[in-house]
């Protein structure tokens, strides 16, 4: 994860704002620096501004204010075809009237490469995605996964400085998608590409990226490596958007640098890690991941506050049990426990004590 530490911004968004109608801002003051060789994912719900950012980077939209720099050069006024950025589109956008070989040859032709050089590069790019035998096929004769590979090869064939991918795996089925995630990751590492990847699929974002920028409401909510994003969300939106999450509303009772005591609305006291709470008496939303909830006393740290829970429903999911419980007035509290040999079987109606490590309960802003 060296790439994430580079300070020299290969791609830089500098106070970028974007408005389509002059009344609302789709992108509000975006600052983002992407290092060379980094795999950065823009993740967010639809309408969060992530695709707009990608389109501004590609040159199909102009920034209303602020500067976008590529390799130190301001590219606001550079037309898309002079930016040297490879792009993979959601629907692949393979030219239907050209064969696969002609599709790949197109960016080389417009750059004035000679015939032999073009053929060599096309062959190399096709071999790279294991599609060497398909040069004479038409895109319509290929399956979705094969088209995806060709689109990838086409975006890479002219050795671009930067590759953009706009939800490239959205149209594939689950198995193929997972396979392609691996392929893209492999190409990224082998070729040392800089990739900006847009998706609304958090699983994709977590498995592929060096860093993930979570977008909401035209702003980056958190920019962090996947691990941090999942385990140490900065705010309630990120906690909720990434993975499953239990929320317990309450008030801060005691506060120190690395520990907070939160009194839940139903009166129970729990230990948490303060994230964005500043004062005692402040309202907060405590976030706990379902797989970090424990109900066996020996798994809890000594002195941890426990809390009463009533089992409402146990769902067998193969590798795990998903237990829905009534906790502190909320009947949507979920605990996930591994299906190990000798795991205690809970039954609905059972009353248990649950707890967690204070690190795993994070006191966030009230949403």
């Amino acid at each position: 994860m060296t790439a994430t530490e580079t300070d020299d911004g290969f791609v830089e968004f500098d106070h970028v704002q974007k408005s389509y109608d002059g009344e609302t801002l789709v992108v509000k003051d975006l600052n983002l620096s992407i290092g060379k060789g980094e795999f950065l994912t823009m993740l967010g719900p639809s309408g969060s501004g992530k695709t707009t950012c990608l389109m501004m980077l590609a040159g199909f939209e102009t920034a209303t204010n602020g500067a976008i720099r590529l390799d130190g050069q301001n590219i606001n006024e550079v037309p898309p075809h002079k930016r040297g950025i490879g792009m993979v589109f959601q629907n692949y956008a393979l030219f239907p009237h050209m064969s696969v070989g002609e599709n790949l040859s197109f960016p080389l032709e417009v750059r004035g490469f000679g015939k032999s050089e073009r053929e060599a590069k096309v062959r190399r790019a096709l071999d790279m995605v294991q599609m060497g035998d398909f040069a004479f096929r038409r895109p319509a004769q290929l399956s979705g996964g094969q088209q995806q590979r060709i689109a990838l090869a086409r975006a890479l064939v002219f050795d671009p400085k930067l590759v953009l991918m706009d939800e490239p795996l959205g149209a594939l089925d689950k198995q193929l998608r997972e396979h392609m995630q691996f392929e893209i990751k492999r190409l990224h590492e082998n070729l040392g590409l800089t990739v900006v990847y847009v998706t609304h699929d958090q699983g994709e974002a977590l498995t592929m990226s060096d860093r993930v920028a979570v977008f909401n409401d035209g702003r980056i909510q958190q920019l962090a490596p996947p691990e941090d994003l999942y385990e140490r969300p900065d705010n309630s939106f990120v906690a909720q958007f990434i993975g499953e999450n239990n929320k317990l509303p309450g008030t801060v009772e005691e506060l120190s640098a690395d520990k907070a005591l939160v009194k839940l609305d139903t009166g129970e006291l729990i230990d948490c890690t303060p994230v964005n709470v500043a004062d005692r008496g402040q309202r907060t939303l405590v976030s706990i991941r379902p797989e970090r909830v424990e109900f066996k006393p020996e798994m809890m740290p000594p002195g941890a506050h426990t809390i009463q829970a009533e089992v409402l429903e146990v769902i067998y999911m193969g590798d795990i049990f998903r237990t829905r419980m009534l906790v502190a007035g909320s009947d949507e509290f979920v605990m996930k426990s591994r299906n190990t040999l000798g795991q205690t079987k809970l039954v609905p109606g059972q009353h248990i004590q649950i707890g967690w490590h204070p690190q795993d309960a994070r006191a966030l802003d009230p949403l």
Partner: protein
Amino acid sequence: MTDATAMLTTNDGQPLKAALARSQRRARRNALLLVAPLFLFVLITFVIPIGQMLSQSVYNNNFSVAAPNLGAWFDDHPQGSEIDETAFAALVADLQYMKEEKLSGSAGTRINYDISGSRSLFTGSARKVDDLTPPYAISVPALDEKWTDPNLWRAMRSASSPLTGDFYLAALDLTRDEAGVIVQVEPRQRVYKMLFGRTLMLSALITGICLVLAFPIAHLLATLPLAKSNLLMILVLLPFWTSLLVRTTSWIVLLQQQGVVNSLLVSLGIIGDDGRIQMIYNQMGTIIAMTHILLPFMVLPLYSVMRPIPPSYVRAARSLGASSWTAFRRIYLPQTVPGMAAGALLVFILSVGYYITPALVGGADGQLISNLIAFHMQKSLNWSLAAALAGLLLFGVLVLYWLYDKLVGIDNLKLG
């Protein structure tokens, strides 16, 4: 498990193919019944009239039924034989027959196609046939000197067989000389080839103008948001909802010498009052009015092809390094070819056979071949020649279709 080599049967032992046919019989019969009305309609209103027309163009028995004796004489005496007493005797016998059966008019009309003035010759002579006495070689020319014209005899010889290619010859400005050899007609009378040429040239020009005008409109229609493009579409289709005559006459209002456009130009001082431009009752009028009327036929196929082209194709091309012009030329344009070809084919074929607009605004030099077909249908009553001209037009259109199929492929046709 079924043995793959044995004939497949259903589980109660019937052959599978028979069972399949029986199970689909009902659906197939319903489909046939649904198609039947249209099939009959097309047969009665399209196939039969066109067949009639084509046969009319090569078959005309008006003279041959009225002149059986001359027919027999022509059979016995080859081309170039001397017109002797036996020939005149046969002629008199036929005139007698025409008088009795009242066929002299239609027989004369048939010969009149080739030799003008023949109709009155036949009707006049038939009226006086009873006064004729042998030897007919003397008395008939005495009745009317024209009966000795070898051209007349040649025309009668060719008309005596009902099956003839003469009308096609005439439609191509060709005729037979006294010896029966195919030659061009006098330069003064050559009209059809010139008109065919003008029709094709003007149609090609109108098609070209329509394509140039329709392409940006169709592109705009295809890329605008739906609410706006629907409004624009209504404007494009508006001419369809107005009578053809109203549209054509409104062009007369606009374009005539004392019309709106000329008056505007004069009042703006661009042209003088004595320099008013003749924009109608000539080729220009035909071109302007027909382009306007046929434009939707170009817009619609283009639109239907452009609408499903996602903007990401051009974006992809731009991101791959193509300038906007290259992206348009190499990526967008080739994908609109089926629409362009369909629109061009439609407009060209429609304008080749267009009649009413050139008739109203074409003046003398804006007339097309269809106006001449109408003339032969309604004025000169030479239906066979009209049929031959129409047959040539039909043949030309079929050739175009064939060319289209070779170049673009008929399965690429997208009309809407």
